[in-house]
């Protein structure tokens, strides 16, 4: 069995030890060194538009209540009562001013502050025994947003999200900011696949090579005209900041003609022109590339395609966001959302939703064939022979490491990062190089856990409490009525 060091060396060389796709020890390392630090997408502000709106989302095994508090601020509370650890919210979505633990009735405002503690005086001697003042559900160590996309990091010292995303924000805007109104999300559809989480993330990041083969059937039935092998290889793959993606080459034409070609109505095109930077517009209008699939390290993916949703010649674009939530080394829960520009015309929203359902998600005709491959790969990666095989992931690179085709120059590519036309596995290698960097870098021993109420506050809890504002109502806080049922 290869040592860990050679695993990372091989990965950096584009030769992938096959067992990394089904290995309990590797998964444990991902848990400890990667998901403990990286920014993980959990949802979008449009899912919780009103005060009290919440969704529960997971970062690996940890459940968070992602909620908009009464002041309109988005927060993420660790979904565990401070007392005996029961989940204080067992629904996956809803609206609540308070979350009440069903076990002993402790209750918390939607900003996390504890307000109800039955028999506080008799059982604890009041504030002398358990100071409710400043006590909150444990906040997520770090929470940040970009274009309304909500991310959590388990690392209190994580870099700012915008710095983590880096130049990928240039491309993220194509998906999530087609107008000043931003996007609205629907869903997610959720389903579990017996496949390792990395496979989907790599596939969306850069695998243009699979499209003509895996997705032959959707071209044959007239759903999508683009994936034919000849067309697919004219697109490019780009990597910028902490993400990368694939594009299609558009037919000659102006910016407007090219956006119309993928099905955008003129009023949406006008808003894109007002919203995107000259460089962003040039990627489409001058360079002739249209974004398609992409991934942000480690486990968020995006897709933008333009199928035919009705009989005839017209195509219509859709956008989908998703996360590959790891369950174990051989199982992943897919969360797949439909996204659409909030100011798009109603008819566009309807047909775009239709396009999403036909192509991606739990019933999507692209998706169906993808998952079949990934499940099979994961099964095969489990055995002893997989430990003897290095998968060749060096496409686009000669033996001396130089590229098969040179990167696009600044006349050909107005975007940041590096882009190569044609088939290559540059982005898959970028994803796995980052993966190796995280896995090799052991996190320090965890800091002492935090407690609330009876013990001296730790600095981060104190900061969270200060941010929440203190409960000033004394005993009256306790009798605050609870509302709709997250509390039931």
């Amino acid at each position: 069995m290869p040592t860990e060091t050679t695993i990372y060396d091989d990965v950096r060389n584009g030769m992938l030890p096959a067992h990394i796709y089904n290995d309990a020890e590797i998964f444990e390392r991902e848990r400890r060194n990667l998901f403990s630090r990286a920014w993980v997408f959990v949802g979008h502000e449009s899912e919780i538009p009103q005060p009290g709106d919440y969704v529960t989302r997971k970062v690996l095994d940890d459940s968070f209540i992602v909620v908009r508090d009464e002041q309109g601020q988005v927060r993420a509370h660790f979904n565990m009562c401070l007392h005996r650890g029961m989940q204080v919210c067992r629904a996956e979505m809803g609206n609540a001013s308070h979350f009440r633990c069903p076990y002993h009735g402790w209750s918390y405002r939607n900003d996390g502050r504890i307000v109800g503690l039955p028999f506080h005086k008799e059982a604890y001697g009041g504030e002398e025994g358990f100071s409710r003042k400043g006590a909150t559900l444990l906040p997520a160590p770090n929470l940040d947003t970009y274009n309304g996309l909500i991310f959590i990091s388990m690392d209190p010292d994580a870099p700012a999200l915008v710095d983590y995303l880096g130049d990928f924000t240039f491309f993220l805007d194509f998906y999530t900011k087609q107008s000043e109104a931003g996007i609205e999300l629907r869903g997610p559809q959720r389903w579990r696949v017996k496949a390792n989480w990395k496979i989907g993330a790599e596939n969306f990041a850069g695998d243009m090579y699979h499209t003509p083969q895996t997705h032959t059937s959707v071209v044959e039935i007239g759903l999508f005209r683009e994936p034919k092998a000849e067309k697919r290889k004219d697109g490019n793959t780009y990597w910028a900041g902490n993400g990368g993606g694939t594009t299609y080459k558009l037919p000659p034409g102006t910016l407007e003609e090219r956006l119309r070609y993928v099905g955008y109505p003129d009023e949406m095109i006008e808003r894109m022109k007002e919203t995107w930077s000259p460089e962003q517009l040039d990627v489409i209008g001058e360079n002739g590339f249209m974004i398609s699939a992409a991934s942000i390290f480690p486990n968020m993916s995006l897709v933008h395609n333009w199928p035919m949703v009705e009989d005839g010649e017209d195509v219509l674009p859709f956008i989908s966001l998703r996360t590959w939530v790891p369950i174990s080394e051989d199982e992943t829960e897919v969360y797949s959302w439909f996204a659409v520009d909030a100011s798009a015309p109603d008819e566009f929203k309807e047909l775009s939703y239709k396009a999403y359902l036909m192509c991606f998600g739990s019933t999507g005709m692209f998706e169906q064939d993808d998952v079949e491959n990934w499940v099979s790969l994961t099964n095969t990666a489990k055995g002893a022979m997989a430990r003897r095989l290095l998968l060749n992931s060096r496409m686009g690179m000669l033996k001396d490491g130089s590229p098969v085709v040179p990167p696009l120059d600044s006349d050909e590519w107005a975007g940041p990062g590096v882009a190569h036309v044609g088939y290559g596995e540059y982005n898959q290698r970028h994803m796995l190089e980052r993966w190796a960097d995280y896995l090799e870098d052991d996190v320090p021993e965890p800091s002492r856990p935090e407690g609330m109420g009876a013990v001296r506050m730790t600095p981060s809890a104190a900061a969270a409490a200060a941010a929440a504002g203190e409960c000033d109502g004394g005993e009256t806080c306790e009798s605050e009525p609870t509302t709709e049922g997250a509390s039931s």
Partner: protein
Amino acid sequence: MTLIGADISAESVLNRGATQARKVGRSLSFGDERHLALSRWLVEEAYTLDDQRYEDWLESIAEDVHYLMPVRVTTALGAGYTTSPGMAHWDENKYSLSRRVARFLTEHAWTEDPPSRLRHFVTNIRTFETDVEGELIADSAVLLFRSRGDTNEAATISAQREDVLRETDDGYVLARRVIMIDESVLRTQNLAIFL
């Protein structure tokens, strides 16, 4: 939560003129000829779907069909809804169903090559008259057993269905199907099947 197909169908933005038929009165007697005819229709359909004879299946579906399976969500008791607002797994018309069937008929629908072994168990059938002339409603419970290959465990899908069946000269056709799946998180790799 009681499944009222007309309401769920009407909430979808893709309901383009599908029937709004609603149940009227108590369920038909199990000896009623209409009940027997609808029961037979559902059993025949189950065999058609088990055999993946999807072209035959399409012929039993009305041109204006709405075939809908909302995403289920876990909500608190009293929240008033158990489906994800505006999101379904299937929200189909005849055209999109026909594209799905056409795909299975190509030689490149890899997810079903080799094919799954399917068994649709259909039970708890009850039938109703409706407020629309020539249309009846059939409720049923369906359990799909799906086995693929020889490595992974088989998947099961449990759901309730409310179907509107319309009488035509060639027999009954499916005019609306609302499927309430019993899981919020599907435990099958995809829905490359029909319920």
